[in-house]
């Protein structure tokens, strides 16, 4: 094999240009794969970091662990770290409260490190370091009449009767609060305490004090744990052991997708060691991801990644395969010669594999290195460009390369090279010595001789005649070139259909939301508070709605869970109501103190008065409702509402503000506001500073910006991908045409030797170029347009199912990819012309004898 190795090495050296092009091709494709792998590891690392910020570093939390059971946690080899905290009881603070419902503090004693494990951070001050220090939940500041400052001493009267004096050293916030979206219900993790004697309910807010983690102290403990790597892989088994429950119960509670109800005995068994158990399942899934410990999630991720990898691998194969193929075509005679000396098929294949090995040896490391550099730059770029949004979401881009990523990229690259070289190796093994010696592989000798049409010969002369014969009889020579043109064009046209998806997504988004900030308050003074916000200078216009009053028939049992609702009434602020009237052709003046009904109300006629009984309101929980009646002055179309795609089967009445305020006590007092603002971020900041109780805020302006940016980013990336494919296609065409011409130099020299003029030659090869181009373009258009229409058909048939409005239909008419077709024709024509013109020039300058002699060497 030493001699074959020499042959391979020297052949690669002799054809430096092609070797270099192939190595670069391999490196580029490997770099693409490496970037993809790095994006994967970086996304995973960033997602883990995000989860840790949002929910803490702990994998699981066990509440109410008895002292005697602590040993199961502290001496468990599957647990890497654990942090203890202790419920120190409920206490009534001595500061004056401003909330509708009184609250108490739920005092938690925690050791150092527990805060990070549970995603708590200080917004001002620090965490307690002594037992007489306290840190309060940040939002308590908005619920007192007098401001609480750092250093203030507060007195807590504990439920046990004890009193504690504690110095405020910090204010604490949770990791899952951000500027984009927050919901007090989620944020505060609200808990309630019901006093059975006084029948009073207290809201509980978190407060923290220092505790040294001394397990000798009384009561139960809360344990936050982080698994070791091995523990993480076997987490279900470990957790089941910690909970001390049966395998059947564990499956029922934690892994059964249908979440079946537990029996009383099962609930008791579940609580025999811990009172409550929480799992950071996303963090566990992310950190526990390993190809050696396959979970369903890992399998899905691997399968999905492999599909993406495969697209890149095939794109790479498409480029590299041609180089190997050309290398074989160029050396058919060589293989024939060595075959006549006695090489076996296996040795022929061996030569191609050796070449592939050498190319991989240089190309893969180069690609890996390039991929790492590009990924690092990309991570920095995304971090910089998206910083505003990332900060808002609390996400950090954590660039990470793992040995796995490199290994995966190397394996994919090897697979890609093997796939590329496979066909060439097979071809090389099938080269028959006699065919190579006779050099007749490329000429078809079957069937009748193909006659050149007379008109064709008359029009294009002898050059045209030879071109026709060449095209008809030397199909092998043209196949690679025509296929290259066809595949490149098909990819260009097919990929452009991706734009349809963006158009669809954009339309749906625009249709859905026409405001910047959405605020929902479930507080009894919510409507009033939101109206106050509406008068802020940051607000340009707004729609404010009350909660929906459900009107039921008289005599409905107030304890009925699902009563028959005759209609609902929603109050709207004047400005928005006026617009609604105008949009629906109703005079706003006539509508004062009255209402508009939704267009699904069939009994509507002029002067209609709808009436019934208010099913519930702030004043009548569990009591028969007050009678309600409203005069209807017109109908409204749901599409004229601020949320255009809202859909309900109920008959809905929208009343003006005067009606709503007159009946305000019959509503719950809640409010929903849709604000338009020139500076949504400033508006959200204002709302945040107001520290409203029971409120959720969504900054859609940020969401829009983020989606817009992401859309642009995805477009840019898909344009980059398209560009890469086009470049591969263009390189491929250049490669195929150039080597076709190179291979035929002796044939051209012979034509020149028998007296063909430069003009005749140019005529001949340009005509051949036209044949190649037309054939390639034809097949390219056929396949490309099929893909393009296929994507349109898929989008149009699936879009109707995706619209939020069931009546909405996909209205895009199919637009043929005319621009792409024209661009393809121009590109292919220009490329063929430039390459062929170069060879036409070469034809005249080349030494005829030298070229023919080289063929025989």
């Amino acid at each position, binding site marked *: 094999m030493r001699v074959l190795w020499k042959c391979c090495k*020297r052949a690669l050296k002799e054809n430096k240009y092609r070797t270099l092009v192939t190595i670069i091709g391999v490196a580029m494709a490997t770099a693409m794969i490496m970037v993809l792998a790095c994006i994967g590891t970086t996304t995973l690392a960033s997602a883990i970091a995000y989860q840790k910020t949002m929910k803490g570093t702990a994998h699981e939390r066990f509440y109410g662990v008895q002292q005697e059971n602590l040993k199961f946690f502290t001496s468990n080899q599957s647990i890497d770290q654990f942090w203890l905290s202790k419920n120190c009881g409920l206490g009534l603070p001595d500061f004056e409260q401003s909330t509708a419902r009184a609250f108490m503090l739920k005092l938690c004693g925690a050791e150092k490190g527990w805060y990070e494990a549970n995603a708590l951070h200080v917004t001002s001050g620090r965490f307690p370091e002594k037992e007489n220090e306290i840190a309060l939940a940040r939002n308590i500041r908005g619920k007192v009449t007098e401001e609480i400052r750092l250093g203030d001493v507060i007195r807590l009267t504990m439920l046990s009767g004890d009193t504690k004096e504690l110095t405020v050293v910090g204010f604490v916030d949770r990791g899952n609060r951000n500027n984009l979206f927050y919901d007090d219900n989620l944020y505060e993790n609200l808990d309630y305490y019901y006093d059975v004697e006084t029948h009073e309910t207290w809201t509980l807010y978190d407060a923290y004090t220092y505790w040294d983690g001394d397990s000798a102290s009384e009561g139960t403990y809360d344990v936050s744990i982080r698994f070791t790597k091995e523990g993480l892989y076997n987490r279900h088994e470990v957790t089941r052991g910690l909970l001390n429950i049966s395998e059947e119960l564990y499956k029922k509670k934690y892994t059964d997708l249908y979440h079946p109800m537990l029996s009383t005995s099962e609930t008791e068994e579940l609580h025999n060691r811990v009172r409550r158990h929480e799992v950071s399942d996303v963090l566990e899934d992310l950190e526990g991801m390993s190809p050696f410990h396959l979970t369903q999630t890992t399998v899905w991720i691997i399968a999905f990644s492999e599909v993406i990898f495969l697209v890149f691998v095939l794109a790479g194969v498409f480029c590299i395969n041609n180089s190997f193929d050309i290398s074989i075509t160029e050396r058919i005679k060589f293989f024939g010669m*060595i075959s006549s000396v006695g090489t076996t098929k*296996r040795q022929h294949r061996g030569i191609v594999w050796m070449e592939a090995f050498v190319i991989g040896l240089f190309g893969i490391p180069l690609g890996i290195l390039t991929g790492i550099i590009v990924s690092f730059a990309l991570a920095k770029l995304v971090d910089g460009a998206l910083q505003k949004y990332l900060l808002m979401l609390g996400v950090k881009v954590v660039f990470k390369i793992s040995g796995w990523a490199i290994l995966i990229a190397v394996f994919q690259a090897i697979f890609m090279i093997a796939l590329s070289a496979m066909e060439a190796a097979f071809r090389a093994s099938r080269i028959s010595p006699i065919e190579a010696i006779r050099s007749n592989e490329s000429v078809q000798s079957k069937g009748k001789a193909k006659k050149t049409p007379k008109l064709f010969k008359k029009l294009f002369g002898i050059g045209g005649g030879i071109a026709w014969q060449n095209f008809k009889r030397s199909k092998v020579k043209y196949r690679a070139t025509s296929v290259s043109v066809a595949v490149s064009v098909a990819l260009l046209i097919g990929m452009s259909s991706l734009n349809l998806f963006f158009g669809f997504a954009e339309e749906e988004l625009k249709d859905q939301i026409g405001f910047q900030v959405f605020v929902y308050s479930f507080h009894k003074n919510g409507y009033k508070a939101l109206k106050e916000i509406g008068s802020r200078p940051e607000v340009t216009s707004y729609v404010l709605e009350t909660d929906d009053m459900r009107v039921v028939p008289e005599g409905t049992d107030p304890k009925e869970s699902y009563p028959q609702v005759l209609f609902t009434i929603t109050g709207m602020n004047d400005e928005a109501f006026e617009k609604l009237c105008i949009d629906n052709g109703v005079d706003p003046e006539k509508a004062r103190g009255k209402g508009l009904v939704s267009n699904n109300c069939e009994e509507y006629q002029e002067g209609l008065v709808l009436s019934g009984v208010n099913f519930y309101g702030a004043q009548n929980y569990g009591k028969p409702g007050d009678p309600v009646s409203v005069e209807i002055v017109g109908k409204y179309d749901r599409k004229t509402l601020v949320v255009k795609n809202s859909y309900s089967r109920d008959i809905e009445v929208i009343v003006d503000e005067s009606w709503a305020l007159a009946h305000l006590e019959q509503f719950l007092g809640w409010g929903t506001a849709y604000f338009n603002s020139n500076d949504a971020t400033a508006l959200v900041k204002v709302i945040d500073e107001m520290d409203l109780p029971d409120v959720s805020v969504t900054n859609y302006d940020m969401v829009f910006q983020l989606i817009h940016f992401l859309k642009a980013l995805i477009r840019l990336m898909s344009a980059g991908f398209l560009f890469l494919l086009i470049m591969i296609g263009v390189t491929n065409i250049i490669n195929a045409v150039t080597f076709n011409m190179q291979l035929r130099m002796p044939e051209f020299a012979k034509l020149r030797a028998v007296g063909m003029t430069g003009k005749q030659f140019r005529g001949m090869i340009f005509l051949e170029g036209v044949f190649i181009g037309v054939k390639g373009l034809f097949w390219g258009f056929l396949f490309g347009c099929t893909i393009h229409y296929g994507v349109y058909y898929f989008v149009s048939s699936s879009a109707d199912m995706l619209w939020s409005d069931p009546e909405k239909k996909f209205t895009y008419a199919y637009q043929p990819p005319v621009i792409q077709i024209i661009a393809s024709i121009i590109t292919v024509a220009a490329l063929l012309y430039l390459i062929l013109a170069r060879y036409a020039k070469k034809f005249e300058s080349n030494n005829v004898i030298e070229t023919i002699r080289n063929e025989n060497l």
Partner: protein
Amino acid sequence: MEILRTENLCKTYGKNENAVEAVKNANIHIDQGEFVAVVGSSGSGKSTLMHMLGGVDRPTSGKVFVENEDIYAMNDDRLAIFRRRQVGLIYQFYNLIPVLNVEENITLPCELDGKEIDKALLEELIGTLGLDKVRTHLPNELSGGQQQRVAIGRSLITRPAILLADEPTGNLDTKNGNEIMELLKASNRKYKQTIIMITHNLELAKQADRILIMEDGVVRESANL
């Protein structure tokens, strides 16, 4: 002792109306150590016959026995090994591997076989063929005569049972042509090498022990030398 025999050997190219019978029912016998010349006009089927005798091209029908073994009963890989070990081929256009130097081209069949090179034989061949001074040169640095000598050296390095030469002097001037003929005759005498040489030059053919004549694919024995 018979070294090569053919039975009703035929080769047809193309099909139906395009079919061309290049070799028709050739039955030939060649003894070990014989120097046989095959003469005939261009297109008479000489090269086709030689390729079939050398295991390069499979016949349409008929058999070729070398040392009493039907070589076309072998599969492709065994046939390749047969070519490597039992046949030496010399072409008009030398067919040297352009990326290997003189010495490497000569030792190529041994290397392919993974066999130890017979250094003494190599030196003797290089000396006899007059390639001492150019042993590290690549084929494109050699004259036509030198290239053909390399091809002869390559064909003899494995001590093949048969040496097949297709117009070995066809591409050379008279002086170089004569030198090549002398080398072939010398190897026939010195190593008792069986040689089948194809030529259309009767003067060269007369230097062989026996002449076979090919006309329109039919082989017949020449009456006179």
